[in-house]
């Protein structure tokens, strides 16, 4: 049994030690387990993000969309209303002058079954619709799932080995990207909402506002203050990002834009980076069939007008529509670096997030620190281990050698077990290994001290060994179980690194019991059988 455990441990241990594993012949690799221990982020560098989906915003966005579609519906049915607007998180208010229209508009409610009419808030000229509670819940719920899916897509395209994207609790998403070299870029890629919208500029009203031609970056708030209260109904100010040709300095151009969304990024089927004639990268997008028709209609209706390409409320370009655009293709130009264009194409392909994400935890470990910690940790552990090994031999002689053998066996089994479970090894995990080594030594010390006591009483070697093991047994079990209780509590309630520590601790304790009570006893018994031991070197 002892031999079996050792062989199994070695088999599972090998994949963790890559240089040796690579040197194995191919046929052996096929039958061998192929995954060893994964190094935690603190050891190999990478990012760990915990994000929260802004659910309330997701509901608002959904309601905003309904408002737009309602506006379109009213225009189609030729029902003249004064305004349709979202007036609360999940509330839509329709104002109209002609009270006779009320019944007609009420009938439209049939097309929007997710909304119910709040009669108490209505008047002869006003209708108030509220998104149903059950729909609010559904949107919130699907928001996080959609966000998960989108983030997964983006990371897949970004190319990270073994990423982890997981839901945690009700509304949190955990993303782990081991070994990422450009943490900032990866973070931006994940976090970007990437809501692509096409909106029309309000060129008729813009001159009245007396907007500055250009402003420095970060001064947007001043402009918004200047026009406060003067904005025409249904309009908003958005800023285009632009760069000075010679210095490359970034600035902003304010535009008056109609709030109404003509088309969103939902209808994209593809987005690719292309290179323009001046070697400037841009993103060319392809609409799906429905989007293509829609785009053709919109551009046809608005020839010679300017349309803004808006991504996350920033205008990337605002070209004049020269002609009806057929074929379902368009370009997003702007001043991009190759990398920016690439990342933009990725987020557009992967789709928009249903709502903005809030990063609530961000751990980034540079690869150099990880390497440092491994080297130092391993060196210190090896050194410490060597000191213990030497001490045991000096203090207990031959028996010390047996104890050291148990220690090595212990370590081998523990790493083997961790590999077999594909566990992730973190720095606290290494600490846990060191601790179990300490406990392993302790078990042997307990046993040896007991054997010494028995020998002092004048018992024969064989009896002394058996007696020592017997008497130490209870103590060892008791002490291991109490530590195990701590380990289990840590595993159940600990988070992240603490959990890793708990795993190694609990495994270590189990293995320790085995090696201390069975492993070394077997050797003592073997020694006793082969040679009649008169004097025990202990």
């Amino acid at each position, binding site marked *: 049994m002892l031999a079996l455990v050792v062989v199994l441990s070695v088999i599972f241990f090998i994949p963790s030690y890559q240089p040796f594993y690579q040197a194995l012949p191919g046929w052996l690799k096929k039958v061998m387990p192929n995954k060893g221990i994964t190094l935690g982020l603190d050891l190999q560098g990478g990012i760990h993000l*915990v994000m929260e989906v802004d659910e309330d915003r997701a509901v608002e966005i959904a309601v905003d969309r309904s408002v737009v579609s309602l506006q379109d519906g009213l225009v189609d049915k030729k029902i003249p209303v004064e305004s349709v607007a979202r007036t609360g998180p999940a509330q839509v208010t329709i104002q109209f002058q002609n009270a006779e229209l009320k019944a007609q508009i009420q009938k439209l409610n049939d097309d929007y079954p997710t909304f119910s009419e709040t009669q108490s808030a209505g008047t002869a000229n006003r209708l108030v619709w509220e998104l149903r509670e059950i729909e609010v819940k559904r949107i919130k719920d699907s928001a996080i799932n959609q966000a998960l899916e989108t983030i997964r897509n983006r990371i897949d395209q970004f190319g990270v080995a073994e990423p982890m994207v997981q839901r945690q609790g009700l509304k949190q998403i955990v993303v782990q990207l081991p070994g990422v070299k450009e*943490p900032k870029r990866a973070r931006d890629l994940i976090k970007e909402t990437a809501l692509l919208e096409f909106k029309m500029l309000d060129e008729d009203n813009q001159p009245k506002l007396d907007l500055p031609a250009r402003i420095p970056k970060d001064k947007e708030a001043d402009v918004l203050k200047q026009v406060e209260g003067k904005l025409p109904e249904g309009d908003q100010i958005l800023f285009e990002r632009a760069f000075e040709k010679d210095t490359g300095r970034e600035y902003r151009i304010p535009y008056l834009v109609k709030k109404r969304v003509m088309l969103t990024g939902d209808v994209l089927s593809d987005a690719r980076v292309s290179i323009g004639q001046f070697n400037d990268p841009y993103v060319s997008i392809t609409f799906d069939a429905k989007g293509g028709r829609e785009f053709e209609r919109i551009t046809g209706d608005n020839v010679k007008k300017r349309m803004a390409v808006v991504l996350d409320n920033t205008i990337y370009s605002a070209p004049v529509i020269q002609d009806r655009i057929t074929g379902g293709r368009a370009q997003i130009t702007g001043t991009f670096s190759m990398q920016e264009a690439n990342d933009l194409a990725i987020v557009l392909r992967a789709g928009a997030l249903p709502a903005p994400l*809030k*990063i*609530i*935890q*961000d*751990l*980034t*470990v*540079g690869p*150099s*620190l990880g390497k*440092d*910690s491994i080297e*130092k*940790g391993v060196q*210190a*552990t090896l*050194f*410490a281990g060597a*000191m*213990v090994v030497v001490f*045991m031999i000096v*203090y207990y*002689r031959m028996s010390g050698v047996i104890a050291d053998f148990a220690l090595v066996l212990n370590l081998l089994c523990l790493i083997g077990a961790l590999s077999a479970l594909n566990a992730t090894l973190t720095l*606290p995990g290494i*600490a*846990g290994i*060191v*601790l179990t*080594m*300490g406990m392993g*030594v*302790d078990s042997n*010390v*307990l046993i040896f*001290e007991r054997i*010494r006591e028995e020998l002092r009483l004048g018992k024969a070697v064989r009896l002394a060994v058996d007696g020592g093991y017997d008497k130490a047994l*209870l*103590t060892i079990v*008791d*002490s*291991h*179980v*109490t*530590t195990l*209780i*701590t*380990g*289990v*509590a*840590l595993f*159940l*309630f*600990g988070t*992240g690194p*603490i959990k890793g520590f708990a795993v190694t*601790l609990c495994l270590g304790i189990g293995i320790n019991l085995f090696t201390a009570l069975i492993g070394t006893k077997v050797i003592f018994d073997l020694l006793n059988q082969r040679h009649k031991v008169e004097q025990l070197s*202990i």
Partner: protein
Amino acid sequence: MLEILRKTDIDFMGKRRWAFLFSGIMVVLGIVAVIQVARGSANLGIDFAGGTAVQLKFDQAIRVDEARKALEANGLADAELQEFGQENKLLIRLKASTTIEEKVAERVVAVFTKEFPSNHFVVDSSMEIGPTIGQKLQQDALIAVVISFAGIIFYVAARFELRFGIAAALATFHDVLAVLGAFYVLDKEITLLVVTALLTLAGYSMTDTVVVFDRIRENLRMRRRDSEETIINNAVNQVLSRTIVTSFTVVLVLIPLTLAGGEVLHDFSLALLWGVIFGTYSSIFVASPLLLLWPGASGRLLKRS
């Protein structure tokens, strides 16, 4: 055979008054630390309190006062700086008053890029934690502590007797509080890793106490005539060489980890190191004498067996 200690016969129980006095002081310190942690005025790590920590590794040495000046000039006056001498590493910490949306980590990096253009650096690690997560972690850590203590008392009470369980738990609590108190007095940062270390040492100290208790129980059964005080004293003396050898080997492991294990492991190993020393002390001088304080007949254990 090589022995550190031959048969000893030290009157540990007789010295219990001094031990209780010393332990009392340490426990009070620890309680003060716990109160300060609860009030939020202790040096809680970023992972509990929320905030930002950025560690930079420079090519050339950087002076802390210059770095502080640079940060102050850029509106990051409340940053705490810590340097790791030989390797030109600088740790910048900002506590939670700032929200994560502000991208504090990026601001810190920008400040150093601007103010020290000739001294190239890389970001070793950065950590930004929202205050809500910190609270959740505090809560989780507290639950883990309470559950493990309850479990241990229950187990020891079941294996021995209630007073053993309570004495063991009190002694363990004493060790954790003593280390926490020491960390507080030295104004060391209490991070998630330090809490892990505290829980580990709780397990370790428990082991130590259980070993002594086991011997006491064994002796109580064998020698009915001696007074309880003598029996306990003898038991402590009998396991003394084991206690010392074990603690010595663990200390042997922890010293290199503390000195050379790298900055991440340093505080962790330090907490454990102190914990082992306190744990050894407490199983001899605190846990066992506590058994004597328990009112009641000394023969109860015997009836059970």
